[in-house]
C-alpha cells in the first residue's frame, strides 16, 4: 500500500512537471469555460427519472483522471488548456506514466514492476473540459491555506507521536499495526487517495456503482468493498454520540442534483484513528463538514462536486469537481483484510530486523520520505 501511495504522489509530481514543461514552452492560451459544469454534453439532454420520480443517477462509473487536484503554479491563473495543449500534455503524461516501459535501467525496472496491469488507464486522461485543476473553488484552483494556530499541549503531543509513527513506518520499523494508516489496516481507503467520500481519482480502483430504490441511493465503491446507503427520505442523522469511519450520510434532491451531507465521523479516539486521520486532510472530524453534489450531465456522465470545510484546519471551504464517466466494465470484489499480506510482512519483517540487532533511527535518510498526506 505504501508503494501505491508513493506512486500516486509520483503521478501528481509527473503531472506537475509535464504542465510546467508546457508552460515553459509558452504553449498555453486562455480559453473561457464553464468550470465544473460537466463534460460538454448536449445541454438539451433531459436527465432521466426513476419510475418513482427521483432523478436517475444509476450506472457504473469511473472517476479516474490525470488532471491534478491543485492547479500547478507554473500555469499561473489559467483555468483551462487548449485542445492542443491538452493533447500534448496527455500524450506526455501517458508516456511518463507507462509502467511497462523498459528504458529506465534496472532501478526503474524494479520500480515499474508494479506494472500497468495494476493501474487504471483512466489515470492517463485529463478531464474532458481540460481544466488545470480539480479544485474549482477557491478560484486559484488550490487548497486554501491551513489555519495557523497554537497547538494545545495535547495536540502537540499527538502530533509528535504521529511524526514518530510516520518515521517508523517509512523506515519499516513499525512497532504495531497502529503504525499503519487506516488504508493499510483495511478499515477505509485513505481519504486523500479517493475510494470513498470524497471520491478522488487515484492510480487504480476508481470505480463506483450507483443503485437506487425508493427512498435510497446506494454508492458501491470498489475499494474497500463498501456500499454507502444514503437515505433520501428526510430522516435525521444518528445522534452525535454514534461514531463511524465512513460517516452517516443523508441525501436530498435539489432539482436534478443529489445533495449528500455526511457527519458522525470517528473522532474521539486518536489512538484508533492513527496518524493519517479519518477525514480528508487529517482535519478535525468533529468540526469537519462535507457536502457532495451528484448531477447527471449527460447519458454517460455525472458531475461530482464536493465541498469540504473545517474552520480548525483550513482558512476557507473549498470545492472539488470530478467527472464520473460511465464504464462498461464490472466491479469485482476488493479483498483487503482477508488478504492483507502487507501487515504480516511489515510487522514480522521489523521484528526480524530487531533480532538481527538493527534499530529504528528516527533521523535515517528515508524517515521523512514516502507516505505522508
Amino acid at each position, binding site marked *: 500500500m505504501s508503494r501505491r501511495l508513493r506512486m500516486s504522489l509520483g503521478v501528481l509530481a509527473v503531472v506537475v512537471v509535464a504542465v510546467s514543461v508546457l508552460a515553459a514552452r509558452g504553449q498555453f492560451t486562455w480559453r473561457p469555460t464553464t468550470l465544473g459544469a460537466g463534460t460538454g454534453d448536449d445541454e438539451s439532454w433531459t436527465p432521466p427519472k*426513476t*419510475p*418513482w420520480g427521483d432523478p436517475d443517477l*444509476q450506472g457504473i462509473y469511473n472517476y479516474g483522471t490525470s488532471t491534478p487536484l491543485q492547479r500547478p503554479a507554473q500555469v499561473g491563473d489559467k483555468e483551462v488548456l487548449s485542445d492542443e495543449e491538452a493533447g500534448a500534455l496527455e500524450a506526455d503524461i501517458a508516456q511518463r506514466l507507462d509502467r511497462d516501459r523498459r528504458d529506465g535501467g534496472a532501478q526503474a525496472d524494479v520500480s515499474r514492476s508494479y506494472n500497468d496491469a495494476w493501474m487504471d488507464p483512466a489515470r492517463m486522461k485529463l478531464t474532458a473540459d481540460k481544466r488545470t485543476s480539480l479544485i474549482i473553488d477557491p478560484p486559484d484552483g488550490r487548497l486554501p491555506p491551513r489555519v495557523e494556530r497554537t497547538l494545545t499541549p495535547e495536540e502537540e503531543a499527538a502530533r509528535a507521536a504521529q511524526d514518530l509513527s510516520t518515521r517508523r513506518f517509512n523506515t519499516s520499523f513499525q*512497532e*504495531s*499495526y*497502529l503504525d499503519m494508516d487506516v488504508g493499510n*489496516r*483495511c*478499515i*477505509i481507503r485513505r481519504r486523500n487517495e479517493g475510494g470513498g467520500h470524497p471520491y478522488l481519482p487515484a492510480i487504480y480502483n476508481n470505480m463506483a*456503482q450507483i*443503485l*437506487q*430504490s*425508493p427512498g*435510497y441511493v*446506494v454508492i*458501491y465503491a470498489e475499494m*474497500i*468493498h*463498501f*456500499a454507502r*446507503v444514503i*437515505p433520501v427520505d428526510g*430522516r*435525521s442523522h*444518528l445522534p452525535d454520540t*454514534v461514531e*463511524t*469511519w*465512513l460517516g452517516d450520510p443523508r441525501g436530498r434532491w435539489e432539482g436534478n442534483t443529489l445533495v449528500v451531507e455526511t457527519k458522525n465521523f470517528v473522532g474521539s479516539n486518536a489512538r*484508533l484513528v492513527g496518524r493519517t486521520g479519518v477525514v480528508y486532510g487529517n482535519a478535525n472530524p468533529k468540526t469537519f463538514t462535507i457536502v457532495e453534489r451528484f448531477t447527471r450531465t449527460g447519458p454517460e456522465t455525472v458531475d461530482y462536486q464536493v465541498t469540504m470545510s473545517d474552520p480548525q484546519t483550513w482558512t476557507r471551504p473549498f470545492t472539488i469537481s470530478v467527472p464520473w464517466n460511465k464504464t462498461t466494465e*464490472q*466491479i*469485482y*470484489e476488493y*479483498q483487503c*483484510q*482477508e*488478504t*492483507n*499480506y502487507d*501487515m*504480516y*510482512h511489515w*510487522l*514480522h519483517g*521489523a*521484528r526480524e530486523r*530487531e533480532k538481527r540487532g538493527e534499530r529504528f533511527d528516527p533521523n535515517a535518510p528515508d524517515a521523512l520520505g514516502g507516505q505522508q498526506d
Partner: protein
Amino acid sequence: MRNRSKVVIALTIATAAIVAVGLATRLPSPAAAQAPAPGEFPAYSAPRTADGKPDLNGIWQSVTTANWDLEAHSAAAGPHTELVGAWGAQPGGQSIVEGGVIPYRPEALARKQANFAQRATASVPGDGVEPPLGDPELKCWMPGVPRSMYMPYPFQIVQTPETILMTHEFNGSTRLVRMNWPEETPVDNTFFMGWSRGRWEGETLVIDVTGLSDKNWLDRAGNFHSDAAHVVERLTAVSPYHLWYEATIEDPKVFTRPWKISFPLYRRMERDVQLMEFKCQPFVEELVYGRFTKKPTS
C-alpha cells in the same frame, strides 16, 4: 313426541345450517386471528416493483443460531470463557439443515472437526498456514454465501431490474446479484462473497452462486466448503414481513450429495431503521497481529 322430534330435527338442521353458513363466511377471520403455524404461510403475492417483479427491498435479518452451528447444538461455553463469560457463550439451537445433518465426506468431516478445535486460533495471510486457522468471522473477513444470510446482523436489499445489491452490516460485506447474467465467474479467481447471478421464477428470486473462496467457513462450528461449491439460493416473499430463504449447497469435494438449508428472514420494522456501521478490523487487530508487535524491553 313425534311432532316434538320433528321440531328438534328441524331446529338442529337449521342450527347446523346457520353454523355452517357462519363458518363458511367467517372462515378467514378465525384463521387470521390465530397465530400461523411456524413454517407455514398462507398464499401470498408480494407487491411489485415498477418492472413487475416481487419487491424484496428492505432491511432483513435472520433469527436463527445457525451462525454458531448449522446443525442442532447444545448451549455451550464459548472460547475464552474466563474472559467473556456468558457474553461469549453459545445458545442452543435447532438444525436449519434439511434432514438435520450435513452429509460430509469422511476426510472433510475430519477437517471440519479440526476447524472447530482451532476456531479461535487466528493465522494471518502470509504466515504460510494453509488452510488458515480460525473462524474467518473472528478475523473480520467477509463471511461468504450463504453464511452472510444467517449472521446475527441485518442486511439491506436494494433491488433494480439489472442488479440486486445485498449489503450486510457485518464488515460492510456486499455482493451484487447480476440478473440474467450469462457467465459463471468471468475471471479466473474466487471471491469471498462469490459470484452471484439472479433470475426470477414467478414469486421467487433464484440466485446461482459460484466462484466462492475455499477460505470461507459456514459457521463458527467449522463447517466449510471448497472452491468447488455451488450454492443455489431461493428467496420468496411469504408475507409483507417475511422472506423465506432456502439454499442448496453442492460441493463434491466436501459433501457426498447436495444439501439444503431453510429459514425465514424477518423485515426490520423499527421506525427509521438503518444499517449501522460494523467495521470490525480495529476490533481484531490485537488478536490477529498482536504477536508481531514490539514488546517493551525490560
